[in-house]
């Protein structure tokens, strides 16, 4: 699945005149039409406007102008991103009657400015509440590696579309692991940068204290290039960072010499299938890492993230829970309702614990630069499966797929899920984690690994 050219290669070919953007987009739309009935990644495609943008790109390239780093590269977004003149679904039936969005989400606008061509929107769990993309309104997005299994979620369509080779890059969102989990289960790169680093303007939020957006791709350089294009201050997102952007692409090949890398111990080595831990060891070995590091109280960090998500998500949807209850996906309805009933003190305690846990991990990052941890505790479970047996214990699928992702996003750390694919086995992911705003370090490590393990 990794033999197709990545986005940067496609763009280079368009700029050189070896490929026409119109041909790329046409064959992309054709492939989606052919394969989407089976995969169910896309909930909408924009043929006409994509072709029209491709014509513009070809015109610019023919004139010798540089149409941007993503010239002619097709991309797609989770359907919680605003697309101008399209209704933003956020995986729901309720929102389908909303008026169309007035303008593109900031991330889409910036990618389009760089020459990328939006070809469609992608399936997700309703209102991003889930790790499975089994959506009762829009169907299940299946895993391209095994169509009897889930793609993961909530950005399942975003991960599966890249894994299936339908588009080289997509965007998703991550509150508790919704980029990293599907990326791991579908065997692609999924990047959740530091909280506040990429503008969320024009996306339908879930839990504002935790929500981030980020890219999926088949190569590290594509992840770096998307990040470089999207990041930068945006006054449309109240939590968007004003820090000067640090470009990742020029730093990618600087290697890992001198970096202090350690494997997360204790919490991050329990409650997982042996193969998930083996994936971490494979990565550690490739990097020559021996050191272990403890992240104490991570189980409480996960609990606090759960409470914040449940309370904020329910509050966001309270009016809809009052007036449109019957139109919610049964898979999210009872969870939202229960979240609405959380006492304020529990929520406040979770927010205070967040500060405490952040301070603790700041100390850890005095000792190490990079931490490695499993992304999911297991490979993609079969569609419809409610429980999984891990380490002899039967536990529910939906919440536990985020066991290792939740404590890290809880305090806004940047994390890349690095795909580990062993012959004859389903893919898994390893989280490469750094201190806030150290995206460059993460991608340098990933680049070194990609060279060794791909």
């Amino acid at each position, binding site marked *: 699945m990794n033999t197709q050219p990545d986005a940067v290669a496609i763009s280079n070919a368009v700029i050189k005149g070896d490929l026409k953007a119109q041909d790329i987009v046409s064959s992309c739309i054709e492939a989606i039409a052919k394969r989407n009935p089976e995969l169910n990644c896309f909930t909408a495609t924009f043929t006409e406007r994509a072709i029209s943008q491709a014509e513009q790109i070809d015109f610019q390239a023919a004139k010798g102008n540089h149409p941007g780093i993503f010239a002619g590269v097709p991309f797609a977004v989770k359907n919680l991103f605003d697309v101008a003149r399209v209704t933003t679904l956020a995986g729901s039936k309720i929102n389908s009657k909303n008026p169309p969005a007035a303008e593109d989400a900031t991330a889409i606008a910036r990618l389009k400015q760089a020459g990328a061509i939006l070809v469609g929107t992608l399936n997700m769990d309703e209102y991003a509440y889930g790790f499975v993309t089994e959506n009762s309104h829009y169907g299940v997005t299946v895993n391209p590696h095994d169509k009897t299994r889930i793609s993961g979620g909530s950005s399942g369509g975003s991960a599966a579309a890249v894994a299936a080779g339908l588009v080289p890059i997509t965007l998703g969102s991550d509150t508790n692991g919704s980029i990293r989990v599907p990326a791991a289960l579908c065997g692609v790169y999924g990047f959740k940068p*530091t*909280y*506040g680093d990429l503008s969320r303007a024009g996306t339908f939020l879930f839990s504002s*204290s935790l929500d981030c957006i980020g890219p999926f791709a088949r190569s590290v350089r594509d992840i770096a290039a998307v990040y470089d294009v999207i990041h930068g201050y945006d006054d449309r997102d109240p*939590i968007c960072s004003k820090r000067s952007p640090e470009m990742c692409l020029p730093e990618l090949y600087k290697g890992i010499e001198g970096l202090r890398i350690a494997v997360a111990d204790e919490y991050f080595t329990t409650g997982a299938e042996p193969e998930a831990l083996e994936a971490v060891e494979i990565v550690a070995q490739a990097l020559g890492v021996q050191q272990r590091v403890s992240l104490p*109280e991570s*189980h*409480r960090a996960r*609990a*606090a993230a*759960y*409470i914040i998500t*449940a309370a904020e998500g329910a509050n966001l949807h*309270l009016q809809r*829970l*009052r007036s449109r*209850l019957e139109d919610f996906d049964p898979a999210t*309805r*009872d*969870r939202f*309702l*229960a*979240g*609405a*009933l*959380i006492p304020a*003190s*529990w929520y*406040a*305690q*979770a*927010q*205070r*614990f*967040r*500060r*405490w846990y*952040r301070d603790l991990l700041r100390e850890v990052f005095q000792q190490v630069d990079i931490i490695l941890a499993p992304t999911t505790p297991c490979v993609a479970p079969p569609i419809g499966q409610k429980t999984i047996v891990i380490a002899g214990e039967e536990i529910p699928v939906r919440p536990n797929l985020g066991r290792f992702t939740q404590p890290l996003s809880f*305090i*806004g*750390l940047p994390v890349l899920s690095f795909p580990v694919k062993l012959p004859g086995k389903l893919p898994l992911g390893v989280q490469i984690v750094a201190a*806030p*705003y150290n995206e460059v370090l993460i991608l340098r490590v990933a680049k070194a690994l990609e060279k060794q393990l791909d």
Partner: protein
Amino acid sequence: MTDKKIDWTDYVKQTAQLLKLNLDPEHLPGVVDNFTKIEEIASLITEFDLPEEIEAAPKFEP
């Protein structure tokens, strides 16, 4: 730590009423089940002894 004396069904019904949420009796068991799980999870943080000076970040800076 679940307090066995608390009737969660009653709590769910009463609080839902306070929030003007019309719970269908059919949905009640699912909501109670979810809330009971939330309570168990919340105990991990409510039982944790946080120093008094730790305040929530008013604007969260990671």
